[in-house]
């Protein structure tokens, strides 16, 4: 710690940071534009000028840009110095020369950093009388709107999009006052992180196109702390609602998880909540076979009777909260509870949980991924399965080159200089995959092979690092020439990271990644092990246990079960069509609880409407075993309620008791914690519903929320009381605590004078650092230090080609493979059509003329008519199909299939056997 003097008062600040960070962390309001806590300093905008004095005698001082000046012990500065104040006001006047006066029609208005800074500097009177320069805007795709006239040339967009996130279809064009930020030509932004431009841009050049469809000012949004449900990483979010509709999702800062950013699937997947496929009423199968809306009491009576009379099993879901799965498990009994995934996927989730707990290598948070200096990706195309993990790996790739920057005594946050020094250098990233991945541009070496051979690579690396790890026999030369240098580089790294995941459907791959990581730990490395997770609660479901769907089907076949209660799960996505049909035909009664119409709800005898993540409280376990709480953003529609609450009512309806065992959220969390040792800390994740600050709850609405008396005036002139929330310390109201809430309950970032997202600075211990009372969430699992690594001794045979057959592997797509986001209109527009990809040599050998040819894929008893894509990167004898996209949902891949030219005519992209 150093001492600096601001206005002659001493302050203790951290060494190695810059003056702007120091001032902001101390709570001073220094205006800035180009600096961003994650994208660091460049000194482009000249807005953060402060006076720096040589010593106590120096009265003149020097104007310096605080974002590029490192703090020094004894440094004396002034923020309020008249010359500095004048300078900053003139800079903003100059930036405003070309900025249009369109705040009333600008989507950024009310949360605009430029507005805040203009007010802060006191520049209230425009003097310029000249025409403003104008630009033609571009269509940047379904996510981001473009209005270049508002640009103040801070370069944040380009520095985020290209430098930070690795995008290459964006840039700065032209010169002088014609400088243009966008693409060379109109077109959809290709980066998985383009939506962050909306938050990164300090004004309204890049705004949220989905929000514009149902626009609401920030001050009119009801917001709450939430967790993204579109992959297993558990990024923290702040969704905003108005008029019973979800209107946008912004990132919620968590220094351990997603930091400042989100991927576009997470940001734009939310529209499924507003979908017209929502189930808003209980539905009951009628005599004529139709599903008709019925009163809640009738539906409850029906299901209660069915549960009482029948031999019921419950099928939970990896996308439902812990509480919901737990309530279902209690309702049907542990031996009749199933976790709702195929045998293959259940085994993988269990293997991941096992590897993270029984070995000596710790797992990583996303933030810790950024601190690793060598990475091996084993089989997982992270930018498609867990995009933010890819962004973190990109930051990790800078760590070795940044050592040179440190050696030259250049602070790493002096971004422009650091990037000039490091140039194109990339730290060691190695990718072993079935085909091209979106991170290949970072890779030092790439190995492409079938899943079994990828697993063998992992096992071989483990053995090369630690000779006591099991050896891999018959390793071909090309595999050895990949594995050997990888092992050497990982051994030489300070903090090597092994990344794998469930997407290739291989338990062997999970084990191989564990062996490699354990070998590094045993070799004395500070190694890390990271697995992606497919669903937002995959690990939580695995922790709760329960059989897989094959076991559930077996129980129905044997007659030991005849009634199926399915919660937040579309079984068609987890089992092949034949099994699905068999399950439905064996079950006398099928009850589905979910929020969107899907294959299972359409076939059920009774459907109960479940709340989405935005209308419920719950706990999710992310890919690293971190438990995180999400809260309601809007009250569920009238007949809709949380699935765990349905379970409580079914408890009563089925005669299990007089009242629900879980009258409120805290009760079910307490029950969960008392039953499972692993969940004992879950109640402490956030304050209980009884929590009050100065006697008040925490308002989900800002104090400037407008139109409350008019919101329902089309129905009644009486203003209804705000909906009660008995489940949390948050209220659906403007009224509430004037204090800063505990970090797990922060519904939005706002501070006096800071209406934009930059208000977050006021909620952190230091800018860019953790929130005041620590980041919410807690990892529930820990590695087990062993005297020896508990290596898997799996013997994986080399991939053996089969004549005339292809091993069909799933390739995941950021847009399309995850079902909830695929129901969101902006995301749906980017989902791929079904295809089958082959490499050119294999296609030629199979007599396929070329791309776009129609073929019939025979797979697991089904014949699927598909269009061919040629992919030269695909390993030999593999065929890739889009995971989770019809007609491939529910298929356990990889699986062997045959391909034949399609007969003329017929339908494309589907069809039964």
């Amino acid at each position, binding site marked *: 710690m150093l001492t600096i003097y601001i206005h002659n008062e001493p302050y203790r600040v951290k060494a190695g940071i810059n003056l702007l960070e120091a001032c902001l962390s101390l709570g001073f309001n220094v205006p800035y534009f180009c600096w961003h806590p994650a994208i660091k300093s460049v000194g482009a905008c000249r807005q953060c000028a402060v006076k720096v004095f040589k010593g106590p005698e120096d009265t003149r001082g020097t104007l310096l840009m605080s974002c590029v000046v490192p703090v020094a012990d004894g440094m004396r500065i002034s923020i309020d110095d008249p010359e500095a104040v004048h300078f900053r006001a003139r800079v903003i006047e100059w930036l405003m020369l070309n900025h249009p006066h369109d705040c009333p029609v600008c989507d950024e208005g009310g949360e605009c950093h430029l507005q805040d800074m203009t007010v802060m500097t006191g520049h209230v009177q425009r003097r310029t009388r000249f025409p403003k320069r104008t630009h033609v805007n571009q269509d940047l795709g379904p996510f981001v709107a473009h209005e270049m006239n508002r640009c103040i040339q801070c370069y944040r967009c380009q520095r985020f999009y290209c430098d930070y996130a690795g995008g290459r279809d964006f840039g700065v064009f032209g010169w002088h006052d014609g400088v243009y930020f966008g693409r060379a*030509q109109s077109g959809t932004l290709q980066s998985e992180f383009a939506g962050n431009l909306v938050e990164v841009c300090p004004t309204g050049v890049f705004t949220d196109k989905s929000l514009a469809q149902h626009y609401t000012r920030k001050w009119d949004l009801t917001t709450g702390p939430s967790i993204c449900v579109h992959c297993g990483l558990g990024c923290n979010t702040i969704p905003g609602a108005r008029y019973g509709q979800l209107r946008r999702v912004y990132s919620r800062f968590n220094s351990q998880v997603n930091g400042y950013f989100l991927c576009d699937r997470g940001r734009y997947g939310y529209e499924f909540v507003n979908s017209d496929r929502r189930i808003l009423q209980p539905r009951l199968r009628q005599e004529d076979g139709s599903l008709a809306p019925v009163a809640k009491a009738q539906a409850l009576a029906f299901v209660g009777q069915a549960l009482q009379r029948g031999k019921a099993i419950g099928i939970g879901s990896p996308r439902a909260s812990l509480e919901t799965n737990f309530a279902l498990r209690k309702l049907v009994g542990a031996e009749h509870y199933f976790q709702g995934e195929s045998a293959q996927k259940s085994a993988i989730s269990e293997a991941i949980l096992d590897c993270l707990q029984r070995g000596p290598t710790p797992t990583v948070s996303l933030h810790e991924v950024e601190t690793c200096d060598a990475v091996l990706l084993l089989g997982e195309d992270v930018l498609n399965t867990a995009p933010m993990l890819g962004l973190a790996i990109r930051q990790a790739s800078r760590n070795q080159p940044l050592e040179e920057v440190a050696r030259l005594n250049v602070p790493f946050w002096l971004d422009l200089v650091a990037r000039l020094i490091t140039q194109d250098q990339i730290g060691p990233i190695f990718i072993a995959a079935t085909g091209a991945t979106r991170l290949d541009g970072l890779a030092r070496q790439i190995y492409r092979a079938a899943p079994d051979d990828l697993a063998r690579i992992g096992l071989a690396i483990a053995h090369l690092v630690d000779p006591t790890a099991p050896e891999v026999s018959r390793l071909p030369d090309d595999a050895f020439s990949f594995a050997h240098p990888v092992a050497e580089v990982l051994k030489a790294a300070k903090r090597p990271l092994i990344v794998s995941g469930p997407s290739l459907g291989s338990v062997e791959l999970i084990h191989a990644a564990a062996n490699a990581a354990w070998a590094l730990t045993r070799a004395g490395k500070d190694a890390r092990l990271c697995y992606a997770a497919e669903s937002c609660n995959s690990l939580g479901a695995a922790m709760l246990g329960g059989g897989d769907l094959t076991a559930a089907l077996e129980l129905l076949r044997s007659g030991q079960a005849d009634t199926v209660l399915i919660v937040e799960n579309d079984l068609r996505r987890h089992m092949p069509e034949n099994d699905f049909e068999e399950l439905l035909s064996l079950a006398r009664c099928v009850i589905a609880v979910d929020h969107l119409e899907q294959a299972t709800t359409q076939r059920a005898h009774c459907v109960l409407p479940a709340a989405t993540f935005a209308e419920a409280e719950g706990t999710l376990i992310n890919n690293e075993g971190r438990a995180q709480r999400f809260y309601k953003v809007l009250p569920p529609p009238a007949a809709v309620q949380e699935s765990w609450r349905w379970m409580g009512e079914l408890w009563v309806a089925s005669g299990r008791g007089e009242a629900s065992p879980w009258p409120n959220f805290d009760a079910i969390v307490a029950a969960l914690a008392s039953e499972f040792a692993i969940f004992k800390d879950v109640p402490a994740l956030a304050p209980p519903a009884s929590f009050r600050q100065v006697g008040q709850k925490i308002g989900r609405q800002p104090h400037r929320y407008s139109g409350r008396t008019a919101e329902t005036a089309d129905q009644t002139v009486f203003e209804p009381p705000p909906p009660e929330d008995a489940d949390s310390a948050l209220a659906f109201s403007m009224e509430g605590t004037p204090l800063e809430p505990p970090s797990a309950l922060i519904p939005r970032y706002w501070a006096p004078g800071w209406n934009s997202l930059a208000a977050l600075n006021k909620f952190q211990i230091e800018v860019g650092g953790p929130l005041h009372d620590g980041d919410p969430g807690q990892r529930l699992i820990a590695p087990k230090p062993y005297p020896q690594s508990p290596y898997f001794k799996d013997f994986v045979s080399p991939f053996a080609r089969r004549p005339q057959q292809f091993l069909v592997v799933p390739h995941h797509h950021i847009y399309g493979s995850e079902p909830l986001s695929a129901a969101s209109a902006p995301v749906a527009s980017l989902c791929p059509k079904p295809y089958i990809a082959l490499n050119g040599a294999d296609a030629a050998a199979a007599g396929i003329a070329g791309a776009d040819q129609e073929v019939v894929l025979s797979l697991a008893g089904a014949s699927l008519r598909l269009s061919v894509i040629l992919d030269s990167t695909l390993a030999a004898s593999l065929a890739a199909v889009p995971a989770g996209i019809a007609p491939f949902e529910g298929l356990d891949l990889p699986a062997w299939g045959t391909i034949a030219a399609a007969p003329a005519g017929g339908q494309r992209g589907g069809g039964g056997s």
Partner: protein
Amino acid sequence: MGVSPMSSTGVGPVAKKKKLPETRARRPCHEMGSIMLSDEVKKEIDAEARHYPQRRAVVAEALKAVQARRGWVDDESLRDVADYLGLSFDEVDSIATFYNLIFRQPVGRHVILICDSVSCYLTGYEKLLDHLKKKLGIALGQTTADGRFTLLPNACLGLCEQAPAMMIDNETYGHLTAARIDEILGKHE
């Protein structure tokens, strides 16, 4: 109408650029292959690239090599340069549009750069510009109908001691008068 990518009207480059056909614009660079760059241009780029550790360092030289042969840099050539250097179209175009002497739109056979910086301004630039515009029948940023001349402003030619000055192609001309301009233009067919 031929316009410098950064015309003095302050309108950004993207607004006026010719649009690529959709199918071509959507295909990633690496699939296109380099079909346009001549061996001679490639050799020139490679010779230049030997001076630098990164190939991206020679973007400006590569664009100059293309322009020396074609007079301007069209989208196809720009894409070829991008492919050849392992860069994206956007990365190369952002450099191309930064330089006012890399032309991203067709220009005439001769490019007139009239100096509008302070010395020339004081010694009669405005009058000379009026004369040029009237004589050629075009405004700044335009090309004559016969494709003979393109008229562009230039921030400084470094000829203050000979102000007012202009440059046509690679020749500079100082101490300009209306009569001298007529004479000089006459020498350029």
